[in-house]
């Protein structure tokens, strides 16, 4: 085992871990003040719950051989990580490090979904949802792409999880927004813009681990992934800022931060396969496409409160398709549309559509069942929604002054 690669995968795991608290602040700043604790806790509890599910059966379902079902899902042979010792090698670094790294992806994916249903979803139901969604949706899709399943066989490229994480979460968000319904009193302004920017900055910082870490080695491709990740995020942030400046005469920080995240999402599947110009194109494309989609969604009847579909669903789909367009053999070994291999785009589209369909149907099914279970249910009561979920679900207020508290 190589100590440099091991060090890099461990650091990358820590960086990706840090993204989920970053997301907590990104989302937490966007809601109303009375829901900030609740919104933050959605992300934080994903860490707590998914960490347990992953080491018990999640990793096993995603990454072991599923026998006859192997095209669709892994098996239980590594339940409780049985048989994986400190010497197990995952290709130059410990398999335990790979488990850590993959765990962090599993944590952030359902946390992303929460943006769709903040300010009205029942917290205890969410905890149960996490267990089922990781088991029934995340682990299988992860197996398809990275665990030896059918999408991998198809030859689809997904360097760091454009379909597994972002398309998957983005579609599940639509399903959740549909079933939980609209907020009674959506706020007009985010309650804490510095939190939004802090969260976006932590996400960007952690995303270097997400994308460059996905090379699973400290080498030139990792450095390339690092650089294109940054380039695409910058391009998308700038694009979004310019559109916003043109349309409103002002360059809102929330818009720029959203643009950055959209760029990070879009470059994710492509990060090990494209160069600087590909990254610029993907970033600018993400800025334009996600902006338009977000505007359309706001006009739709669906209350995807924090624009998970527009940013992660559409951004991830654009990134997956763009990977097929801009990938170049010199970097990741596979040529794309621009280099004459048009077929790759079709494969990419197929992987997006399959993930979309599967994730949508299963998320609907899980939520439908949880809604019917006595004592659970999806939506909080009207008085709880009015007083805010910080008090209703957590018995806490975000901030309290001295004296008149």
């Amino acid at each position: 085992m190589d100590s440099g690669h091991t060090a890099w995968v461990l650091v990358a795991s820590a960086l990706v871990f840090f993204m989920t608290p970053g997301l907590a602040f990104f989302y937490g700043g966007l809601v109303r003040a009375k829901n900030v604790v609740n919104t933050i806790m959605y992300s934080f509890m994903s860490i707590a719950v998914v960490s347990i599910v992953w080491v018990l059966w999640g990793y096993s379902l995603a990454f072991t051989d599923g026998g006859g079902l192997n095209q669709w899902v892994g098996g239980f042979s590594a339940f409780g990580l049985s048989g994986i010792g400190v010497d197990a090698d995952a290709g130059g670094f410990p398999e335990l490090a790979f488990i850590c790294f993959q765990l962090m992806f599993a944590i952030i994916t359902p946390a992303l979904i929460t943006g769709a249903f903040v300010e009205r979803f029942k917290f205890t139901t969410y905890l149960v949802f996490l267990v089922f969604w990781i088991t029934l949706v995340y682990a299988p899709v992860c197996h398809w792409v990275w665990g030896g399943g059918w999408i991998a066989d198809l030859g689809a490229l997904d360097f760091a999880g454009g379909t597994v994480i972002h398309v998957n979460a983005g579609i599940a968000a639509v399903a959740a927004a549909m079933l939980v319904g609209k907020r009674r009193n959506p706020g007009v302004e985010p309650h804490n813009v510095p939190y939004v920017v802090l969260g976006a900055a932590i996400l960007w910082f952690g995303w270097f681990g997400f994308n460059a870490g996905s090379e699973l080695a400290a080498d030139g491709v990792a450095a390339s992934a690092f650089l294109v990740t940054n380039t695409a995020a910058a391009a998308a942030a700038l694009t979004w800022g310019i559109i916003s400046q043109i349309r409103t005469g002002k360059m809102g920080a929330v818009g720029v931060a959203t643009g950055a995240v959209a760029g990070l999402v879009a470059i994710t599947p492509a990060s090990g396969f494209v160069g600087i110009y590909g990254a610029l194109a993907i970033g600018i494309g993400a800025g334009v496409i996600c902006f338009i989609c977000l505007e359309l969604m706001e006009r739709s009847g669906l209350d995807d409160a924090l624009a998970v579909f527009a940013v992660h669903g559409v951004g991830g789909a654009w990134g997956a398709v763009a990977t097929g367009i801009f990938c170049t053999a010199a970097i990741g070994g596979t040529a794309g549309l621009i280099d004459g291999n048009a077929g790759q785009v079709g494969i990419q589209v197929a992987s997006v559509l399959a993930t979309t369909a599967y994730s949508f149907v299963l998320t609907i099914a899980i939520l439908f069942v949880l809604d019917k279970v006595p004592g659970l249910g999806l939506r909080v009561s009207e008085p709880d929604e009015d007083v805010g979920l910080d008090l209703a679900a957590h018995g806490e207020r975000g901030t309290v002054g001295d004296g008149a508290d």
Partner: protein
Amino acid sequence: MLKVEAIVRPERVNEVVAALQDAGCRGFHYENITGQGIQQGVEVVTGRGGRVASRAAMPKTLIVTVISDDMKEAVIEAIVSSARSEGEGAIGDGKIFMSEISDVVRVRTGERGQDAL
């Protein structure tokens, strides 16, 4: 001239403000306060999750508008209808306090009294 101080639920502010404007109010201000009435307060978790304490502390919003005397009933009606909870109303819907204003000055022009409203 009358000062109208209405204590309402924070989530109703937009409705109340709209109703005030419809009733002809052209100026007002508001701020968040903490209040207690029949509605005794809220349950907060203490001891890091071990116990619950009741705090005499409901978040409320205070809306203040100074009006001419003849608008009194229209303004009360506007506030009551926009601030009352669906159905029968609910404890904590708020109160309105009225008091006399003896003089008003518009800083910009120095106008006084009724003209400055």
